[in-house]
């Protein structure tokens, strides 16, 4: 049965998407393919697309779940613009996803599921597989995946439903063959996962191997696409989502600082996974607190910091609003606090499963009165560890609340992450008050350099003092309504935040230091902008890229860097929030490029903007 005409074709990268019903196991399938690709040495980025409904009726558009992976032999910046291949397990999955498939892209459909009933559920009047629109535009490969899975598992005595639950692995087998990767890792994973259910383990392995064998033998699959390994830095890697990396970063900071982590949250998409993740690591002395609401979560985190812990709370936009009053309290009592915002599309409930970066102004100005806090933004899943570690370090060393911005795209997306050596992590040294000082304790005495007050913790003898939201007298911390004191304290709090910028590294741009155009990005748009700028640089355009991790305070050398470019382009997934800030601070020839569709940027969209601005 060997297909003798197999052709081998090398690709620099490929973007593929597994799409099916929520019950079809698309996330697991994607995750396993990701792992096989990572083990082969590809660079990659992934992006899950969860259905908006929890248990939408099977076969409907609302129930479609998808997983996209972009893997390559050179640096992979995003989960990919347009798809090279789409695997559609049912008509609804086809309908919802086919628009992202490139012309002549490979379209693999499970024909068994294109029944009249499923077509109706997907609101399709005709079977798209019979329509020219599909078969001429795409490289359609129809495979009766369900039937073939039954055949592959015929030796097993399993109920029909259990067999059909293996069809995703049959599909995975096909795709692994198609892209020249093995299924060894996945087989081992199946063994581990179904250790107590050997029958099920066997079924999944048979399906996987069946899929491979089928593709190899079938005339329809005549090409193996090879995507060679990428040149990655040496070291040990693992695939990590933004939310996991963030959780790891916080735990690492707590261990390094010798201060117990208390993470308080209230469930909300897409931030809940941070709570789930951290709650697994109790043996690191971390505590998680599922509070009665977001206000309580923020207050509990402040209480934890007051008592000598690293208080962290996390949520998404609507929950962050609820935390703002408490956040202002933390700013006035000058305690460490990290507030994580995994942004989602709003306003109000908005589109909870879709991404956006529109809470920048909320972070900067969402509190009453003059109340600056430090704001950092995570660039990508593989940056989430470093930036969350840094957020905790700043909060602890500067006695200041830090808002850490992530977003749904970063939080749920994954990338290979180069695991740092423990010893390479920077020290975290909170400054505690001295219990044996001869002088009377002054709770608002400040460090000369950072302006941080010393951390005095209940239980420390001789340091009994009162804090609270009422304005403080400078140095003593007693209540004060003195007009000059209020102005002084307002400026001191602001100056303390501002001085955090003195700890930043030099601002770097990728590309030339000066030129026609600088594209400035922040947060989760990093990948798309980096990818677009790299392409345009290759095409010979005078364009560089600056990515801002530090949103507040802005870097001290930012103005210098910006001033060396004739034009500035600021692409954002909001209606122009960073643009507003940059225009307010600096005199720039700035073009804003804004997208608010709940979807990340495509690299090609940014390229188009660059081309519009420079020849």
């Amino acid at each position, binding site marked *: 049965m060997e297909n003798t005409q197999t052709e081998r074709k090398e690709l620099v990268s490929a973007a593929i998407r597994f799409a099916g019903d929520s019950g079809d196991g698309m996330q697991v399938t994607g995750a396993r393919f990701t*792992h096989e690709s990572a083990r082969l040495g590809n660079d990659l980025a992934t992006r899950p697309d969860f259905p908006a409904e929890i248990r939408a009726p099977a076969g409907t558009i609302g129930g479609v779940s998808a997983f996209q992976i972009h893997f390559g032999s050179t640096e992979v910046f995003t989960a990919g613009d347009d798809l090279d291949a789409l695997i559609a397990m049912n008509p609804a999955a086809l309908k919802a996803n086919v628009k992202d498939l490139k012309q002549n892209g490979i379209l693999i459909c499970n024909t068994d599921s294109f029944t009249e009933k499923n077509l109706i559920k997907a609101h399709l009047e005709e079977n798209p597989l019979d329509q020219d629109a599909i078969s001429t535009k795409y490289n359609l490969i129809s495979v009766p995946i369900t039937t073939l899975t039954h055949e592959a598992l015929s030796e097993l005595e399993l109920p029909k439903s259990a067999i059909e639950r293996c069809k995703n692995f049959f599909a995975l087998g096909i795709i692994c063959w198609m892209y020249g990767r093995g299924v060894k890792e996945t087989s081992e*994973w199946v063994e581990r996962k179904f250790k107590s259910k050997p029958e099920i383990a066997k079924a999944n392995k048979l399906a996987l191997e069946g899929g491979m064998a089928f593709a190899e033998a079938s005339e329809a699959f005549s090409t193996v696409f090879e995507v060679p390994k990428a040149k*990655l*830095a*040496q*070291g*040990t*890697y*693992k*695939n990590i989502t933004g939310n996991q990396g963030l959780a*790891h970063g916080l*735990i*690492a900071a707590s*261990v390094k600082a010798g201060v*117990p982590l*208390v993470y308080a949250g209230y469930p909300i998409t897409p931030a809940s996974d941070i709570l789930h993740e951290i709650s697994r*690591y*109790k*043996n*690191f*002395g*971390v*505590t998680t*607190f599922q*509070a*009665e*609401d977001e*206000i*309580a*979560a923020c*207050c*509990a*985190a*402040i*209480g*934890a910091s*007051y*008592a*000598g*812990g690293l*208080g962290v709370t996390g949520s998404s936009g609507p929950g962050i609003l609820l935390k703002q009053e*408490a956040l202002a*309290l933390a700013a006035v*009592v000058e305690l460490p606090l990290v507030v994580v915002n995994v942004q989602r599309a709003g306003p109000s409930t908005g589109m909870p499963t879709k991404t956006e970066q529109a809470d920048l102004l909320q972070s900067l100005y969402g509190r009453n009165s003059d109340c600056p806090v430090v704001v950092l933004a995570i660039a990508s899943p593989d940056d989430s560890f470093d930036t969350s570690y840094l957020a905790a370090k700043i909060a602890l060393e500067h006695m200041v609340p830090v808002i850490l911005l992530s977003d749904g795209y970063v939080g749920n997306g994954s990338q290979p992450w180069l*695991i740092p050596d*423990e010893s390479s992590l920077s020290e975290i040294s909170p400054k505690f008050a001295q219990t044996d000082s001869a002088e009377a304790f002054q709770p608002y005495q400040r460090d000369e350099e950072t302006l941080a007050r010393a951390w005095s913790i*209940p*239980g*420390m*003898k*001789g*340091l*009994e*003092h*009162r*804090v*609270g*939201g*009422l304005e403080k007298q400078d140095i003593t911390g007693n*209540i004060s309504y003195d007009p000059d004191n209020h102005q002084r304290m307002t400026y001191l709090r602001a100056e303390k935040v501002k001085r955090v910028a003195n700890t930043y590294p030099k601002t770097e741009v990728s590309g030339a230091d000066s030129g026609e155009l600088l594209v400035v990005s922040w947060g989760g748009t990093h990948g798309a902008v980096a990818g677009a700028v790299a392409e345009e640089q290759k095409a010979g355009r005078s364009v560089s890229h600056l990515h801002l991790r530090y949103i507040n305070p802005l870097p001290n050398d930012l103005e210098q860097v910006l001033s060396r470019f004739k034009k500035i382009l600021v692409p954002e997934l909001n209606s122009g929030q960073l643009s507003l800030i940059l225009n307010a601070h600096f005199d720039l020839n700035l073009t804003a490029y804004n997208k608010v569709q709940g979807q990340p940027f495509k690299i090609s969209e940014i390229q188009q903007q660059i081309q519009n601005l420079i020849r």
Partner: protein
Amino acid sequence: MSELVKLTKKDFESDQEVRWCPGCGDYSILATVQRFLPSLDIPKENHVVISGIGCSSRFPYYMNTYGFHTIHGRAPALATGVKLVNPDLHVWLITGDGDALSIGGNHFIHLLRRNVDLTVLLFNNRIYGLTKGQYSPTSEVGKKTKSTPYGSVDEPVDPVSLALGAKATFIARASAVDAKGLTAVLEQAAAHKGTSFVEIFQNCNVFNDGAFKDFDERAVRNERQLHVEHGKPLIFGAELDKGIALDGFNPKIVSTKNGSADQILTYDKNSKILAQILASLSFPEFPVPMGVLYQEERSAYDTAVTEQVAQAKQRQGEGKLSDLLNSGDTWTVN
């Protein structure tokens, strides 16, 4: 080990000028607490006084301990965070009827059901003091205030019944004007493991003067209050001549003299049903129950959380950072 220097009331007084209105009930509560604390023999630095916002919530500033004047209604949540990091601290949560039962009602309920180990002193003056006299969730129907010139129309909440419903493990009632009764309650509250909830009647002489005088003044106190004691009959009256008995499911007042004395209920602070009956006694038909109305033993949240962490460490071994970083499916690039 800390040297046992006997602390005095003075040790608990801060250098800050007390700013309540002259004649405010808050003064006597402050003095009673300051006089009581030395008896606990707990070093000053281990006491933390945490409050919300309101006249009552200024309390921490006057205590020479650690103190945190937080935001309106949220002290329970903040205090929970404190106890999660250091369950050994002795936390006093100071709140008002508006603070605990209106804006902070949600946190109050969850504090009680979790049974965080701390003591709540709710200063109930049945009015919003700090905002200058609007009706509160404990104001009686028909209350005329600045915000209700025609009288309030909404039913008040009974803090004790609410606490019972929220599964509080210690519920007591005391009055600012009865230092002895308040001290007795504080002693038991401090000894209780879990959330000890104490409602304190407190007169706001500026905006709600005389709110409790009908049953709180010395002259009428014995007649109109029922001081409960565990294991003792529920009797009251200037002559101790009346008691509480049951008529079916309903409470009734009987005389100790005319042969119905054996019907009088014996108080059992561990009985939730009895506590519910007491909570239902409404003045002036019935006397106002005072003292420790309910108590049960249940594991405290902060203890349980800390134990879980300790168990995880024991079972999985103390977490090592390199193990965490290298957990999951890893691969090496050479």
